[in-house]
């Protein structure tokens, strides 16, 4: 009796269990809204991008409708914790700190921090940044890495991707650090800039995230990633959403994980 009641309690306290999502008929997914080509809104007002395509697929496989919740990098953990969303698919890099507060499913992309700078004042080495301004977005792995490991670099911390890229274009800093995966895309769009440092700090992975302890959705998502991997879904997603935005120097294997 006791165990059962506890169980039902925790079930009713978990509004994001697979069962509950199916019952609601909707899954709420956190995505970016201003980060082409991962999560953004095209000029017709449609949400598109690599993460968004994945999110739609997940909803379809769950058999429910999807509701997008647009987040900024520094809201992603709280969006889960405050029950604002069931799942985060917003280029969420797996880090030890984050693992303590939320649960990551199996990764679906790999990434590391890159640094983009103007071609005419190219930054190719971290030492060139000493005492200079570097733009980051709050709550990104890039911010974490520079805050903890490169204390001599002065950070300018922005709330959104739009703001950070605009700040770089306005020459407010020597360079900008973020996940290399979108720096590639952005620098193709902005040919005056180049990703001078392609990879710095630890190599990491991008994975879906759920609220800590949401075992039900975590297990389901793990299975789903494995299944999608086998179906080569990520390669298709890459080809349709990412490839047109990357330069020739980027190969699928730089971004997506090898499939067995």
């Amino acid at each position, binding site marked *: 009796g006791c165990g059962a009641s506890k169980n039902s309690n925790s079930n009713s306290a978990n509004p994001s269990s697979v069962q509950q999502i199916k019952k609601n008929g909707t899954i709420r997914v956190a995505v970016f809204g201003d980060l082409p080509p991962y999560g953004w809104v*095209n000029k017709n007002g449609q949400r598109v991008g690599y993460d968004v395509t994945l999110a739609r697929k997940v909803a379809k496989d769950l058999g429910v409708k999807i509701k997008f919740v647009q987040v900024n990098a520094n809201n992603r953990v709280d969006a889960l914790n405050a029950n*604002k969303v069931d799942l985060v698919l917003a280029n969420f890099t797996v880090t030890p700190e984050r693992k303590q507060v939320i649960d990551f499913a199996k990764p679906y992309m790999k990434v590391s921090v890159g640094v983009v700078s103007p071609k005419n004042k190219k930054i190719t080495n971290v030492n060139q940044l000493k005492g200079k301004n570097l733009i980051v977005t709050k709550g990104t792995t890039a911010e974490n890495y520079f805050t903890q490991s490169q204390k001599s670099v002065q950070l300018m911390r922005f709330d959104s991707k*739009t703001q950070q890229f605009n700040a770089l274009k306005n020459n407010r800093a020597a360079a900008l650090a973020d996940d290399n995966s979108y720096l590639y895309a952005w620098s193709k769009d902005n040919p005056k800039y180049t990703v001078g440092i392609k990879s710095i700090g630890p190599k990491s992975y991008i994975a879906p995230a759920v609220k800590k302890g949401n075992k039900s959705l975590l297990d389901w998502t793990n299975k789903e990633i494995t299944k999608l991997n086998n179906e080569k879904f990520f390669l298709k997603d890459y080809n349709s959403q990412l490839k047109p935005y990357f330069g020739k120097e980027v190969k699928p294997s730089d971004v997506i994980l090898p499939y067995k």
Partner: protein
Amino acid sequence: MAHSGINVLFEGDNFIRLLGGLWITIKIAAGALVGGVILGTILGVLRTLNSKILRFILRLYLEFFRIIPTVVLLFLFYYIIPRQFNLNMPANELATLVFGLWVAAEMSDIVRGSLISVPKHQQESGKAIGLNRYQLYRYVLIPQAVSLEIPATINLATRVIKTTSLLMLISVMDVINVGQQVIEANNQSYPTGVFWVYGLIFILYFLIDYPLSWWSKRLEKQRLERNNG
């Protein structure tokens, strides 16, 4: 330059989407105002009653919303309250709630101020003809206070509308958030898009707020003229 930057506004559905964002902004502001004005009026009346404890508590409520910047309030409500109280609310409703509580706080002060500035002899004449406390408020004090508080209330409305700009910081698809999507999505074809998009938003806010402030000023002026005359 291939295109003039201003065309970014008319590319695809951009303009409609920006207006859609504005509509959300207006809905939230309107909801907060309606709820806040009603709640605030009740609180304002309570603050003119004799109970010291009640007045103290309501005063604390007011000061809390006065002292804490709205950005901070939004984050507090967005992140802490749902988790602590297991209360789940979509961002739009939550924003309406936060703004509504803030409006109620400010409104309670406006209502209280106008109630106590109804001349004292009005209250005494009411008592002198035997009105009880409820009747005094119902027939004498509140009707007279309303005309005093209208300009301040409209003014509060303009502040609420302006402050909705902060909604972009939580996940509300308000006009600024839509603006950022537009800027990003059209970055390549319209490098100066940022200027035009923010410029349009600037003008949109002005177009909504200016008539309201004008109206409030006019009412205030009329009231002063009536008083002097």
